[in-house]
């Protein structure tokens, strides 16, 4: 029963969701399932949040490496919990939204969270440069093709691209970098995207069927699959 019931649940719910696409009276099930998922996810948050606290409290108690930073993590976590759940400093009081302008939660979000998030995003610029350096060493034919396509698209989106090939006469305008970039996006890029998307769609069908039919059961902790 411990093994069979989850497999039966997966099968039944999976089949119902498939047929809900075609049977109008069942159309609302998608929204209902989404709602159930949100509710389950909230309960699961107790497990996740509890795990976070347990890890850092253990680190503190056993004085593991960098245990001091666990105090900071736990401190930040509890401050946000208090500010949000008890709505401390919320101008609208307990009945207002926790993210009301001027509330402690929103202030911390604006002055701490947002700068951190923006800076992590900004790191991408550095990493894209290092990735480009590695990719552009063009060790093989495929990397060369990737390099050339990236280069043309990059140039085509800057005024420099127009400057570089603006002298080309109108009858050969297709050779101007911005036009080449547009053509690459609209033709070979589109072809590749379509092939990838068709493959993904078929892969999802196959994997979903394996899950629904109970052929794939590892996620349930059943190694016999």
């Amino acid at each position, binding site marked *: 029963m411990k093994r069979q019931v989850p497999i039966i649940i997966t099968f039944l719910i999976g089949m119902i969701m498939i047929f809900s*696409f*075609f*049977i*109008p*009276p069942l*159309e*609302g099930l998608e929204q209902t399932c*989404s709602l159930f*998922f949100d509710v*389950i*996810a909230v309960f*699961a*948050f107790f*497990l*996740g*949040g509890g*795990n*976070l606290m347990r*890890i850092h409290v253990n680190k503190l108690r056993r004085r593991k490496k960098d245990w001091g930073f666990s105090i900071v993590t736990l401190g930040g976590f509890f401050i946000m919990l208090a500010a949000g759940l008890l709505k401390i400093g919320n101008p609208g009081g307990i009945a207002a939204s926790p993210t009301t302008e001027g509330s402690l939660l929103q202030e911390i979000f604006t002055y701490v*969270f947002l700068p*951190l*998030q923006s800076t*992590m*995003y900004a*790191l*991408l610029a550095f*990493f*894209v440069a*290092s*990735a*480009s350096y*590695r*990719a552009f060493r063009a060790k093989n034919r495929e990397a060369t093709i*990737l390099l050339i396509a*990236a280069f043309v698209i990059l140039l085509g989106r800057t005024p420099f691209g127009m400057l570089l090939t603006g002298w080309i006469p109108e009858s050969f305008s297709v050779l101007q970098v911005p036009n080449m970039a547009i053509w690459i996006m609209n033709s070979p890029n589109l072809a590749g*995207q379509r092939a*990838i*998307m*068709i*493959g*993904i769609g*078929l*892969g*999802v*069908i*196959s*994997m979903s*069927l*394996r*899950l629904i*039919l109970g*052929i*794939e059961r*590892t*996620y*349930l*902790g*059943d*190694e016999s*699959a």
Partner: protein
Amino acid sequence: MSSHPMTSRPLYFIILSFLFTFFPSCGGSSIALAQAEPIDIATTQMIPDSEQVVVEPVTSLIAADHKYDDGGMIDLSWVPSIDDQLVASRVIGYKVYRIEDEGEPEMISELAPGSNTYNDQSVERGKLYSYFVSTLSINAETPSVRTAPIEPQREWLNYELLNVLIMALVLGGAVIYFIETARRGKKLFVRKIAGLEAVDEAIGRATEMGRPILFIPGILDMDDVQTLAALTILGRVARIIADYDTKIFMPVSRSLVMTAGRETIKASYQAAGRPDAYSDDMVTYITDEQFGYVAAVDGIMVREKPATCFLLGAFFAESLILAETGNSVGAIQIAGTARPAQLPFFIAACDFTLIGEELFAASAYLSGEPKQMGSLKGQDVGKAIAMAAILIGILTVTIGDAWNVEWIQNITTGLVDVFSTR
């Protein structure tokens, strides 16, 4: 706004304009449809008739049951008022009224000028509804004729999607057929996928170096197929890790994924005969926030220095940060995602990349089990159908359009209809 028949008859329009300008009460509900009765709503009783700006009502109001639904929607369409013009319009909007079971009219929506359709989604089966639409001027309201009562109907099958159902059954049937064929012992060939062939070697490398393995299942929750794909691969990978007795870290950004990940790894250790070696601390929840998670994982990478990183699942902008950091600590990286926008970064920074479909095939491939491998053959049938449809479709549409050959054009139309999702 759909074109109004009256605007194509200038003289008629000029005469009407003259009449409505000097005799404003000429419009209103004097026009009636054969089976409907005129509605006499008082057009703003407080303002004298002479000062009212009376506009023409909408015409050809039709109420129809919305096709292929659960009986919860009625579609309205009409021809806008002749006074509803793009420039200097005297119409400021429309009001839709509904009468339920011969009760009182109830205003259910107010629409902008130019509107000619409305979907009433608050109807119930078993009740009769009729409608009329009022055209609004600055100080008057001109109702249209009322529609005949209509009852919304429930359809049990959406026939518009019949082709989708048939195609899905064909493909699903192909997958199931080959699963059964493989189960009965028929050998099915599957070509080597470089990234998956390297899994054993990558885990062995980590074992030899005494360094851990990092498994990142993407940043979305269990309601995303890519996360499910990552977890199915985790089951296979964790079994090898348990056999080799290597350390694994799996930081996650969703609590549900943490739960599923623990179930998967625990089962793998149990199957390997090493239940005591399993610990819940192998899978830890960090935070739901995308870049907070990335910041923490980057920290884990540079401090724990994993020998192998698996980046499998749904990734967004953070894919590059994770892949580059993993690269910088000298880890072998096997990545895979079904988000085409992130694949270039994985290809640039990782040793092996599973492209789209390969991510979903990975678990079946790694299992080596015939019934799982059979599903890969079924996927190929789908690709063959797609390729045949594309080839035939392009040929027929090109030739049919060029020489105007009707039977070839019919083939094209049929093919396009088969793959239409409306």
